[in-house]
């Protein structure tokens, strides 16, 4: 009897550890004001109609690699904003592969953020004023998950389309090699 009760209590404790596993904070506006310089991007190429885009007066969001929701949103933007158009599903096509250990402009969250927002020479467009910062940070988390740079229990395990590579959550962590471009 007491043994059954102990097992029951242990079971409840195990189940309760799943409660509030992840907080979703939708209201993260105006955490910082003007965190990024308003300098023009490194690339002239811009998606959509040329123009100054939207100039935010404050920033929302930030890099959060510990929320499965944030990373999964990033995976959605990766398709919706047509990153797949050049980078394919991470294997690379017109643009470089994102699921290997080679990083031309750096693998840290800040450098990936700068790559997306400012663009890079030779093809990467500047998404400044195009993608809101909160979504860029979600994209950064997802891009890092593609080469196993975030925790596998947070990385997405399900693709909406057909995928040849194993899901992000089952990729071997790579050790970024910053000095070996291409």
């Amino acid at each position, binding site marked *: 009897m007491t043994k059954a009760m102990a097992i029951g209590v242990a079971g409840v404790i195990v189940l309760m550890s799943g409660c509030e596993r992840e907080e979703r904070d939708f209201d993260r*506006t105006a955490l910082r004001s003007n965190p990024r310089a308003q300098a023009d991007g490194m690339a002239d190429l811009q998606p959509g*109609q040329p123009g100054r885009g939207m100039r935010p007066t404050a920033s929302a969001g930030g890099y959060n690699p510990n929320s499965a929701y944030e990373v999964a949103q990033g995976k959605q933007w990766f398709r919706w904003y047509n990153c797949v158009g050049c980078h394919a599903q991470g294997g690379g096509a017109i643009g470089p592969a994102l699921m290997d250990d080679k990083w031309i402009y750096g693998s840290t969250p800040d450098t990936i953020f700068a790559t997306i927002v400012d663009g890079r020479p030779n093809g990467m467009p500047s998404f400044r004023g195009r993608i809101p910062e909160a979504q860029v940070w979600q994209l950064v988390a997802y891009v890092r998950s593609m080469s196993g740079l975030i925790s596998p229990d947070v990385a997405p395990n399900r693709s909406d389309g057909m995928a040849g590579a194993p899901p992000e959550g089952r990729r071997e962590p790579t050790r970024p090699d910053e000095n070996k471009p291409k």
Partner: protein
Amino acid sequence: MSAAHRAWLAAVSIAPIGAIASPAHDALRAAGPQAAHIADLWWLTLGVCAFVFVAVLAALAWALWRTPRSDAGTPADAAPAPAAEKRIGRRVTVAVTISSVLLIGLLIASVMTDRALAHLSLDDALHVQVTAHQWWWTVTYDDRQPERIFTTANELYVPVGRPVLVTLHSDDVIHSFWVPSLHGKKDLIPGRVATIQFRADQPGEYLGECAEFCGLQHAFMAFDVVALAPAQFEAWADAHRKPAAEPEDAAARRGRDLFLSGSCMLCHAIQGTSANAHKAPDLTHFASRARIGAGRLPNTPANLAAWIADPQKIKPGVNMPAHLIPGDDLGALVAYLGTLR
């Protein structure tokens, strides 16, 4: 009963949406033949169940009333009672027979209702494609001539007296298409195509909703069904086939340039401009819509500005992000969207 019913509806379903004239949302006041068939079946089922309920309670009361009373002095009744048993057996047989007849009657009525629903004539039907998303609806009006096809969102205009064949798709999870005044529910299952057909016989506005829990903002996934006289409907459709008009004043033109060089055009489409993405509601004739955010707020400039500035405050979890932009940029965007009649 009817007034109480409406008051209850108003309290439960319309109150959270705020001060909006409530479109009809009542399965028992059918505005078309499909809902009428369903309402008939509902009333028949209610009548049968009420009859059975009253009969069972009456039988119970009668049994309690006729129970032999006894006290401490009553001798034990040990006599066999074969005659009484036989009588009770007959009564049970009669009751079981009546129950079976009623249940089979309901079954037949249900099958007949299904047949009646399937027999709506689709001659000259209006063909509409509806796609459900978390948490809004795409509505595309089909036509034999491709250039006459057009798309809108979160509103379904139909001509009175003409059948409508709606083809249902889901973009993400299971949703359910429900306009209680016109028809029953139909689930939208990702990867499968469903159809639903109905006819509105009375002009008016009817509230449609998602009727299958589909995530955080399931409660705010509504659409307005507007039934217009055929001539009015054709005029509405012709207006919606046109691309967006060129804005005339300077603020609206600045808003358009912001829209097309900013983040709006990465998800939204406005026909007649270079914005042509389909991950968010088509905004070509946005200003003609009664509500924004799939029934969340009345479509007023102040609400629109609040929505663009931070949709997460109004509808947490929705895919549109906050736009922390200067007030004059926001005003220009709102002015431009206001010109999209």
